[in-house]
């Protein structure tokens, strides 16, 4: 597989684009014509070739540009990356997981040589070469979690497990759907999920937590989550709401297809060996409505999902204000035909 990395931006002039190949492999999140919460976890054990599920950590054409965007966000706001002192071991576990996975899954892009604790890491797309001693933080330019998450697409939370709960005690969060690591750091599973409507009454969190507390090494799981974002912006954080919130008001029937994006998160959960913590990468994929409707099945289905979504969910996901314009646009691509099962395009 040869990857060409896009030169593109996720702010300002928003030059982000999906190539035709990226459109076909987009992780469309709806496997039926309606949506409600569920504990929709499945084993993260590969998937259709070429899809974002195939490899443990998906690397795509946006990799280099996303890492540049992360750097800009971190320079402006260093609190997007935090690790409480007891989480350093989990950071090393995660660094190992990413380096081993990427060097095995993308040998032409990444190389890891290990001689005991003496490691040698080469990241060709980002032009990085680093020799360091595993478990010795003085041999890296920053902490292990920060080091590896500056080179890994998606946000990443490290969850400590104790007292029958999970605690958000470390993370790198620069491409989030309106939540804040600085606010959530130190919270437990119920606390950081408190703003989500309906799901708690449905018992979703209790079941999900019980499942995750028993998550086994070597048996990672995944789920898809989604929301809507105006403009292809990665940093839709509460901290910068003043920058992106007003952009929601720029949607018109003429520009909705180009400006309105479906934002999909491929969330994976991994038990880490030495720390017994859980790594929680949240990988963000963006696609404009006009790219979505290029796949007729997706155009029909997205129309039906958004049209019939309960009001609280549209409100929580932050697109209630634009829902009529979005649904009206999508209705033109829904001829009422039946859609095939599953998420992949026809």
């Amino acid at each position, binding site marked *: 597989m040869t990857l060409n990395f896009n030169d593109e931006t996720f702010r300002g002039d928003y030059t982000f684009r999906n190539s035709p190949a990226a459109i076909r492999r987009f992780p469309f999140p709806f496997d039926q014509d309606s949506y409600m919460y569920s504990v929709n976890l499945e084993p993260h054990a590969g998937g259709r070739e070429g899809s974002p599920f195939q490899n443990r950590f998906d690397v795509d054409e946006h990799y280099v540009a996303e890492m540049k965007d992360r750097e800009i966000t971190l320079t402006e706001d260093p609190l997007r990356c935090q690790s409480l002192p007891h989480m350093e071991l989990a950071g090393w576990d995660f660094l190992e997981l990413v380096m081993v996975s990427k060097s095995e899954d993308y040998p032409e892009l990444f190389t890891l040589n290990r001689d005991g604790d003496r490691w040698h890491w080469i990241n060709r797309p980002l032009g990085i070469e680093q020799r360091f001693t595993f478990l010795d933080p003085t041999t890296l330019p920053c902490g292990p979690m920060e080091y590896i998450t500056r080179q890994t697409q998606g946000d990443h939370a490290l969850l400590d497990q104790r007292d029958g709960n999970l605690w958000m005690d470390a993370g790198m969060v620069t491409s989030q759907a309106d939540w804040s690591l600085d606010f959530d750091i130190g919270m437990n599973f119920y606390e950081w999920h408190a703003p989500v409507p309906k799901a708690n009454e449905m018992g979703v969190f209790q079941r999900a937590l*019980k499942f995750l507390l028993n998550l*086994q090494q070597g048996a990672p799981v995944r789920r898809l989550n989604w929301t809507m974002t105006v403009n292809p912006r990665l940093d839709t954080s509460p901290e910068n709401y003043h920058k992106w919130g007003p952009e929601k008001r720029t949607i018109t029937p003429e520009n909705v297809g180009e400006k309105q994006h479906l934002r999909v998160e491929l969330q994976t959960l991994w038990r880490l060996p030495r720390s017994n913590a859980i790594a929680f990468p949240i990988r963000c994929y963006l696609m404009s409505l006009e790219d979505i409707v290029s796949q007729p099945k997706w155009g029909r289905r997205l129309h039906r999902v958004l049209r019939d979504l309960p009001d609280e969910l549209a409100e929580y996901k932050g697109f209630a204000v634009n829902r009529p314009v979005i649904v009206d646009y999508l209705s033109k691509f829904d001829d009422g035909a039946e859609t095939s099962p599953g998420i992949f395009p026809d």
Partner: protein
Amino acid sequence: MSALELRVAAVEPLSPLVTRFRFEDPAGATLPLFSGGAHIVVEMPDEDTLRRNAYSLISDPLDGSGYEIAVRREDAGRGGSRFMHARVKPGDTMRVTLPINLFSLDLRAKKHVLIGGGIGITPFLAQLRQLQRLQMPFELHYAARSRAEAAGLALLPDLPQIHVHISDEGNRMDLGAILGSQPLGTHIYTCGPEGLIAAVDETGARLGWPKGALHSEAFLAPPPGTPFTVTLKSGRKIEVGAHQSLLEALEAAEVEVDWSCRGGACGRCETGVSSCHGRIEHHDHWLSDEEKAAQTKIMPCVSRFTGESLTLDL
């Protein structure tokens, strides 16, 4: 439950009742590392019964060359430990699960105090290696009745932080002294008989320890009891023998039940009860007191039943 097929590399008696087993990958591959306090579940094909027992890993968590466990022979138990002692030989192949940790260190602690009673020393053997490697302050207290029974002595390194209390030698463990002299931010971990765990909890409460700083793991094997019968939704009846757990009886009858720790701690095998005429003998640490009293849920790995009839949501 993902499992590994491992070769028994060594079998070594440590005391008349306790034997150490070492497992290695047959092809010499490195095994997944783990965290101190983790256990594996070992499968034992014993005639027509497939036994599965959980044992704490006692080897170095950062050494993937093998997994080691220490098994105490329980002559009054259901037969798993007798199988390990009598039947398992070097060179055998056995299936074990990947390590799972329900008793991990709280890495926020400023100091870790480990208190092991009898065979309850096992999770701490791995934890103390992890603590040494992380260079964290700790002390370990090992209590045993007699030196002959103290199988852990052979496994403990000679370190000033390690204190051995042999009650036959008049050297009983003084919990008040141990808990009374610790710096703020210390966490206490106890593993051993229920009595020891209760004593640490009481001492901690008396001395004003925060509950969140006291951790414990009772090594809970499914207790034997009188035979009983359960009914499934289909009307099918399953007999549970005196030396069999309900979970084992369901597995023998090829009824699918999810499980992980098999010791009443993880919650994975929780099963709904649709009708109960009698009393569920709850032995688990998972259900709340209210849930136990309601008799609408059972943990088939350790809990039993006496009475007229019990119908499960299976």
